[in-house]
């Protein structure tokens, strides 16, 4: 019995070392926030009329998606969400963006909420 109790800290320590490498397997690319912001600004400049607060809104959109990805229970899920958002903002054509939006309706609707919140934040509502 006493031997079993002595083994416990070793088991806990061992499981700790097993779990740590697994949780760091999927990584969120920290650069992707800047890439989303840049693509958002680029696509915004390709549309007329150009939104006055475009750069501020795009910075907010990129930041919001990045923060949200960090909150996902699985880091790999957060990372793939950010890749999807980046691809979405890379679309220069509305039809192309509309077609792509259908590949992930949850993120698409979430992005609509994000942009709306950002516009309100930037415009000080």
């Amino acid at each position, binding site marked *: 019995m006493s031997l079993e109790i002595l083994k416990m800290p070793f088991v806990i320590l061992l499981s700790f070392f097993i779990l740590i490498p697994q949780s760091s397997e999927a990584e969120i690319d920290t650069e992707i926030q800047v890439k989303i912001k840049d693509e958002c600004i680029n696509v915004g400049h390709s549309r007329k009329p150009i939104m006055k607060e475009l750069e501020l809104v795009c910075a907010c959109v990129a930041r919001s998606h990045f923060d949200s990805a960090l909150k996902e229970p699985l880091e790999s899920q957060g990372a793939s969400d950010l890749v999807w958002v980046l691809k979405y903002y890379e679309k220069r054509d509305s039809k192309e963006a509309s077609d792509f939006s259908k590949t992930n309706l*949850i993120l698409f609707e979430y992005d609509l*909420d994000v942009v709306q919140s950002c516009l309100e934040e930037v415009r000080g509502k």
Partner: protein
Amino acid sequence: MPKSWIATLMLLFNVLVVFGAQAHTAKTNHADVNLWSAPGREYSERIGKIEKNEEVEVLSTRVLKSGQRWLKIRVRRSPGWRHHGYTGWVDAKFFRSINSPSNEDASTEAVSQSSCVECLNQQTPGLKKYSSAAGTFSQLANSKGIQSGEFIWPVTGVIKSGFGMRRHPILGVTKLHDGTDIAGNKGKAVHASKSGIIISSRGGCQTGYKRCNGGSGNMLIIDHGDGTQTKYLHLSSSCPITRVGTRVDQGDTVACVGSTGASTGPHLHFSVSIDGKYINPLKVLPRRNI
């Protein structure tokens, strides 16, 4: 057997035949077909099963965008089948009509067309694009006898986003927003907008997990028994969510405001549907000053 008895029995038989023929009924040859809380499976929950060769009453039909046909049915299994809990939706492909009114095709088509706002935009050239939801509501509500004020606000707060087409201000992509987003502090009580029975209740979502319950987060659907349903999304995980099958009165607290699922902050997504078609909640909610 006296002649009067035979005459009475024959009369009774005729009455049964005539009344039976008025109801549109259907049967399935499949074993254990699922009964769902809503057409399609996006927001619906399995609420029961239809047994093989069980006769059900068809209340309405809905054709989804995918082309799938769903039937709103009433199960006649027990003496208490008129209870709200025995109505639900089934995939039409599992059923065959065994007793339908002569104008079945025409009525089905009419319901099918009116069940989709976007379809109405396409099929009715005279209607202004994106305004058909509000335009067709009064017709639909009047046919249902629904008056403004029958529903109450489920929560007080500023409207963050209204019902209708939303356009992405940068990318230009549009999407129908099927409800009204009402801002509210996390934990604020959500009240039943109208009396009814909970036909779908999903919990287990924590804030941050966007995909939980298909983005809806913790959610509730109340069937009001008259063809109308109300839906409450993104509910908090820190308050109890009323269970399926519970009968609620108007104003009862059923859950709390949260930010679960695909949500950027605490708010309530509140939807109202009539016969499966979403309508602008502001058309049935009383006017208020916030």
